[in-house]
């Protein structure tokens, strides 16, 4: 049994991140990052395995992410620090794992931000249909304006994210109810488009291959933990915001698949970059078409906005523990944001957005994400073993342990196999990169770390020590 005594926090002359966020902001951060995946990305799973495969992975990957959300909520409600999974890894596994996890986070979010900006630019160019118009100016504006917003303060950043994410989400709901989902044949033609003959055109290996893009239904929901140091009540807000976000996304994913698979043949659905916008066009309603066009832009903006927030916090945390130069750990004295980390990552995102193509950026993001989820399944097992229930205060305790961890680990293995089928060389290149950077950290960088200062949670010694 634990009790918590609240006393005024004393800061002295220290400049810290500002604790101003509530559960709605946590929801806006998580769902904001993810929702773009409904507007593009998930549908490529139909190309890998057919329309039914896209639905099967929607459910199975939904299980993976429900495990992620439950595990993350428990650990984060205890390790409430910026850096999220990085801070968790540092306290539970060790410094080398933490360094790698922080890099997974920065890569996953920066590459996702790049993908969002490219998507937004391409969507505007496709809508305009003007010869000579390129996406570069729209990409630059997306990344710079959102970096500026993040620079100016976390409260406004996530207030904006809440509004634009809500609009994008409501547009999916409006589309769903506009096509009379309770009646087949009027607008929707699921029974004609998905038949026993074409439901799984490549059999079950197609379903496995579809995992690679099925990740897009929910990729990034774990980003809620990066707000841990800026929410007023981490133990309450983070589990609430994360679980509410996951429920919201499961509903959105199901509605999106149902409408799109009922309007487009899988051969087209699997290659289009704009499944929901195309669904809006296919209804024949200009209002729905324009609504879904705007919603696609807003979803991309919300995702990029959340990604800048999260990547900067992970980078900032590395600097604060001297895993990278402490120069990166500066907090803006007026806006209370990690301004140097935001500015450092800005040109990197711009460079990738101008030179990388969308598929490469998406693959790097997914790979880093899945590496992170694999770590989370091991992390929770170690957490429960070292600090069993009752030894430290938990804001949330996830049920059925160790089942979610086992499910998560198994699904990550399947997803790695799926990625290997489609992007084997990138998978090997990234593994080599993380191996080499780990050697650099172990043999060179770690000597700069103040070893006693990095473990900050007021916990008892772990069992067995």
């Amino acid at each position, binding site marked *: *049994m*634990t*009790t*918590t005594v*609240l*006393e*005024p*926090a*004393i*800061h002295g*002359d*220290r*400049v*810290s*991140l500002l*604790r101003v966020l509530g559960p709605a902001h946590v929801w806006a951060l998580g769902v904001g990052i993810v929702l773009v995946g409904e507007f593009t990305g998930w549908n490529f799973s139909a190309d890998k395995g057919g329309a039914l495969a896209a639905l099967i992975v929607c459910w199975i990957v939904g299980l993976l992410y429900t495990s992620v959300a439950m595990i993350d909520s428990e650990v984060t409600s205890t390790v*409430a*620090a*910026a*850096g999220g999974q990085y*801070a968790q890894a540092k306290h539970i596994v060790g410094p080398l794992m933490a360094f790698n996890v922080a890099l997974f986070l920065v890569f996953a979010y920066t590459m996702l931000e790049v993908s969002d900006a490219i998507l937004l630019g391409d969507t*505007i160019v496709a809508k*305009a249909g*003007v010869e*000579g*118009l390129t996406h570069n*100016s*729209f990409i*630059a*504006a997306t990344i*710079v*304006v959102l*970096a*500026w917003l993040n*620079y100016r303060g976390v409260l406004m950043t996530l207030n904006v994210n809440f509004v634009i994410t809500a609009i994008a989400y409501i547009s999916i709901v409006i589309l769903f109810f506009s096509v009379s989902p309770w009646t087949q044949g009027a607008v929707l033609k699921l029974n004609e488009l998905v038949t026993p003959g074409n439901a799984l055109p490549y059999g079950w290996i197609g379903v496995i291959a579809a995992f690679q893009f099925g990740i897009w239904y929910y990729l990034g929901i774990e980003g809620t933990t990066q707000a841990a*140091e800026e929410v007023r009540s981490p133990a309450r807000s983070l589990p609430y915001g994360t679980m509410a976000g996951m429920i919201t996304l499961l509903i959105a994913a199901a509605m999106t698949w149902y409408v799109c698979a009922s309007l487009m043949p899988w051969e087209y659905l699997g290659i289009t970059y704009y499944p929901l916008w195309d669904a809006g066009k296919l209804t024949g309603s200009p209002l729905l078409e324009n609504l879904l066009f705007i919603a696609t832009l807003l979803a991309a903006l919300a995702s990029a906005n959340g990604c800048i927030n999260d990547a900067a916090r992970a980078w900032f*945390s590395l*600097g*604060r*523990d001297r895993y990278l130069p*402490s*120069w990166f*750990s*500066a*907090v*803006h*004295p*007026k806006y209370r944001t990690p*301004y*140097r980390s935001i*500015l450092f990552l*800005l040109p990197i995102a711009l460079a990738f957005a101008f030179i990388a193509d969308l598929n490469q950026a998406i693959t790097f993001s997914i790979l880093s994400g899945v590496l992170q989820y694999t770590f989370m399944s091991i992390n929770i097992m170690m957490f429960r073993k070292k600090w069993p229930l*009752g*030894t*430290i205060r938990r804001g949330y305790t996830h049920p059925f342990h160790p089942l979610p961890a086992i499910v998560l680990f198994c699904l990550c293995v399947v997803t790695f196999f799926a990625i290997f089928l489609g992007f084997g060389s990138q998978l090997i290149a990234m593994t080599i990169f993380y191996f080499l950077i780990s050697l650099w950290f172990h043999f060179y960088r770690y000597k700069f770390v103040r070893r006693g200062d990095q473990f*900050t*949670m*007021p*916990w*008892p010694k772990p069992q067995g020590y």
Partner: protein
Amino acid sequence: MWISLSYACWGISIVLALWMLYDWFKVDTTYAEDVLTSSREGELEAVSEKHRI
């Protein structure tokens, strides 16, 4: 209209990037490095919450 919007995007990007660079310079020259990098992880938890098992 789209071409004009494209130019407007470049303009906004340049203005905001310059503003951030100016503010960065101003902050770094106004405040001591020790103050700017004084944030500590878990500080609030350590100060405000006491765990009784």
